[in-house]
């Protein structure tokens, strides 16, 4: 990763955080908990940012429609988060593949 990528990444991240902070309190709470969970679960497409910014897009629509966050996604927030990454590979998958010696794109 070059310096440029890091700087770009930081700028984008700041813009993202600003969008989170502009959400109503209930949305912010739920967003932050989901983010924390997803970071721990570790789907591999998380770092490219589309998954997280997509959630904000979706939440902003919910706000515009005058809905509460649980009205939008249901009470089982964890189920919502799991469904988002259901068929994504996780860091753990990569790790397991590499110790079992299966081919990995990084080595091609």
């Amino acid at each position, binding site marked *: 990763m070059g310096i440029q990528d890091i700087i770009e990444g930081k700028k984008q991240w700041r813009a993202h955080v600003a969008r989170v902070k502009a959400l109503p309190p209930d949305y912010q709470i739920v967003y932050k908990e989901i983010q924390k969970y997803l970071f721990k679960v570790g789907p591999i497409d998380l770092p490219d940012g589309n998954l997280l910014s997509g959630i904000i897009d979706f939440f902003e629509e919910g706000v515009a429609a005058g809905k509460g966050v649980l009205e939008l996604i*249901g009470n089982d927030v964890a189920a919502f988060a799991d469904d988002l990454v*259901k068929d994504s590979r996780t860091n753990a998958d990569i790790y397991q593949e590499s110790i079992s010696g299966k081919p990995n794109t990084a080595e091609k």
Partner: protein
Amino acid sequence: MDDLTEMLKGTLEGCVLQIIGSEETYGYAITRRLNELGFTDVVEGTIYTILVRLERNGLVQVTKRPSERGPARKFFALNDAGRKELAAFWTKWEYLSSRIDNLKEGGQ
């Protein structure tokens, strides 16, 4: 009807494909359609996670369009791969429902 959630889980994606297949549409409209059909427990968040996965798996064509109020909306239409997936869904569904009907009627 109460407590459909578990049974509906595997088939909801097919329902969403069918709705998108008949016309280009967006998440909230899909949710409304399903609610009107009698699936009253389906919330927007559930549909959102399905749409994210359809997009990730390359089954839909996505277009962002401005809306009258609030942020731009993502509209979804099926592409060729999506149409194939939809056809496969109905084949599976017919297989499943005919076998279950047989079971109920005591046939083979």
